[in-house]
């Protein structure tokens, strides 16, 4: 009883000290509730469901040869797609920020299209363009490049899906970047390449890295667009999310959630790692 007022005083004291802005307690409560309800609750359900089978069954489901091939395929195609975007997405962002030309706002809006388009539509459209009898696909085939129904097709789809992630993260940073720093570098005798490498690139790296990580994580989980263009050949072009759906079709809920758990942990580790890396980079910079 006698403790209570002391506690109260202590809390109000700490609140006052935490920050100048009001509403911390309320917004933190909301954040925890929001993240808990929307993110953690389903994740717990997932882990719970996959733990209904024994440990041995879990291990055999997630280490099956077909599953291993599927993770590896998902991993490397997502990596390739994200890497392509990390280079060309920056170019797109550069052009959109630094130059003005007719149709710029249209181009700017187009970048977001992969966000808005239902992924199945994207997959069908890409297949319609890149399949062997289609306009682009037939030209490429005569050069000996087969896109649709190969791993290359998966990379194309994941690159398409990933474009906005890189562009939209790099763009605001580029906008903030003062051109006078570059001018100063030029005045001090730096060449164009040197200015880019030593002045522009370092300040863009965290943004590029974030965009890359987002595109990569999205690519790992992408299902809708890929199943249309990949051909879905077991062991060859079967992505991990397709394997999950395949298992569900066999009413193998436990097996499906086992693979889902592995993918979830991989993505989480990845995003967490990138976040840490960025924090570290920012601290090193400061």
């Amino acid at each position, binding site marked *: 009883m006698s403790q209570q007022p002391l506690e109260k005083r202590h809390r109000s004291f700490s609140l006052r000290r935490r920050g100048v802005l009001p509403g911390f307690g309320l917004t933190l409560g909301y954040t925890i509730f929001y*993240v808990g309800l*929307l*993110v953690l609750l*389903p*994740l717990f*359900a*997932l882990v719970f*469901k996959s733990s209904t089978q024994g440990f041995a069954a879990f291990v055999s489901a997630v280490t*099956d*040869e*077909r599953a291993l091939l599927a993770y590896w395929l998902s991993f490397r195609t997502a990596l390739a797609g994200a890497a392509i975007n990390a280079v060309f997405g920056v170019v797109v962002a550069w052009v959109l920020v630094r130059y003005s030309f007719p149709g710029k706002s249209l181009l700017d809006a187009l970048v977001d299209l992969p966000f808005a388009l239902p992924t199945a539509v994207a997959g*069908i459209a890409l*297949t*319609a363009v890149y*399949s*062997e*009898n*289609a306009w682009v696909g037939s030209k490429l085939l005569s050069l000996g490049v087969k896109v649709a*129904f190969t791993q290359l097709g998966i990379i194309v789809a994941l690159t398409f899906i990933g474009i906005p*992630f890189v562009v939209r*993260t790099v763009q*605001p*940073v580029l906008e903030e970047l003062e051109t006078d720093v570059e001018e100063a570098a030029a005045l001090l005798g730096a060449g164009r390449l040197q200015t880019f490498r030593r002045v522009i690139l370092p300040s863009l790296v965290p943004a590029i890295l*974030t965009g890359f990580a*987002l595109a990569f*994580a*999205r690519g*790992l*989980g992408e*299902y809708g667009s890929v*199943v*249309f263009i990949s*051909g*879905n*050949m*077991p*062991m*060859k072009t079967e992505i991990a999310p*397709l394997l*999950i*759906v*395949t*298992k*569900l*079709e*066999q*009413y*193998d*809920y436990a*097996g*499906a*959630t086992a693979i*889902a758990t592995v*993918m*979830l942990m991989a*993505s*989480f580790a990845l995003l967490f790692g*990138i*976040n840490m890396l*960025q924090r570290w980079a920012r601290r090193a910079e400061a």
Partner: protein
Amino acid sequence: MILNSLSTPSFARRALVLLSLSLGLAHCNKPSNAAQSTAAAASAAAPAPEPVTLLNVSYDPTRELYTAFNAHFAKKWEAEHHQKVTINQSHGGGGKQARAVIDGLEADVVTLAVAYDVNQLHDKAQLIPENWQSRLEQNSSPYVSTIVFVVRAGNPQKIKDWNDLARDGVKVITPNPKTSGGARWNYLAAWGYALKQPGGDEAKAQAFVEKIYKNVPVLDSGARGSTTTFVERGIGDVLVTWENEALLSVKELGHGKLEIVVPSVSILTEPPVTVVDKVVDKHHTRAVAEAYLKELYSPEGQEIAAKNFYRPRNAEVAAKYKDQFPEIKLFTVDELFGGWAKAQPTHFNDGGLFDKIYKPSK
């Protein structure tokens, strides 16, 4: 800071997508609760009972069939019972649909592609009794179909029978049996053909089916996807598909571009129907749901099925449409494969014979 915070919502969304995929949490329960209306009506014995709603959960290609049939049944039921009945339809891949019902979608009746999927309603959720398939005539399959080939005009590859599909250089389009019910019928039809050849046995059948699948350049996830690949993308020499789907594609996508080839022997595909006992008892819709399925067997129902390219069971209606459905020797899953309860695990589940086709030979 802004950049950093971006990663969290996207991660959440990704996780949610995975989850809704893996747990089937999206119980899209349709409030088809015209439920108590029939009971209330029965006790009051009023001249105009309250309207009733049924939900028919079906597979993909039956859309046109049930649109026509529902209109017919609603008219007939109202004329005989002075009660309005609305039938809602839900279509999708057979496995997905069955899973939705198991997870809580309140279907009064299911009309699915494969008995195996209906069996799951008993095995996983006890929604129907074990003997559900013997409750209606003809294995509870009021209409049937079979598996045929669609080839390009003029049949340039001279495809006549199943063995032409195993020939070198022929490209065969069929969906993935792991994700498509129709694809499972295709696979079993080819297997059965090989078994029925002189000197045919399981080992030869396996080698034969393996050879066919080596000729498959793309495994779509569903039957409609394969039709699109073949017709729209122009990929492949032959499409293996349901007869009803074949007739529909030729009708919709142009005569003169495609031809149907009927093989020497094929499988009798029996898409079964059943009342979902737990749901109709809860909704008090058993009477109307049972009448709905019985009507499928009536001459009018059979005629609607035939018009939508399903082979009718009724001999008279079948005779009337005999030009549309050429005679073909048919075997059943029960005859050659010991029923779906056996065929599914042997061939299609993980580690089954289908998986062996794609295992790299050691």
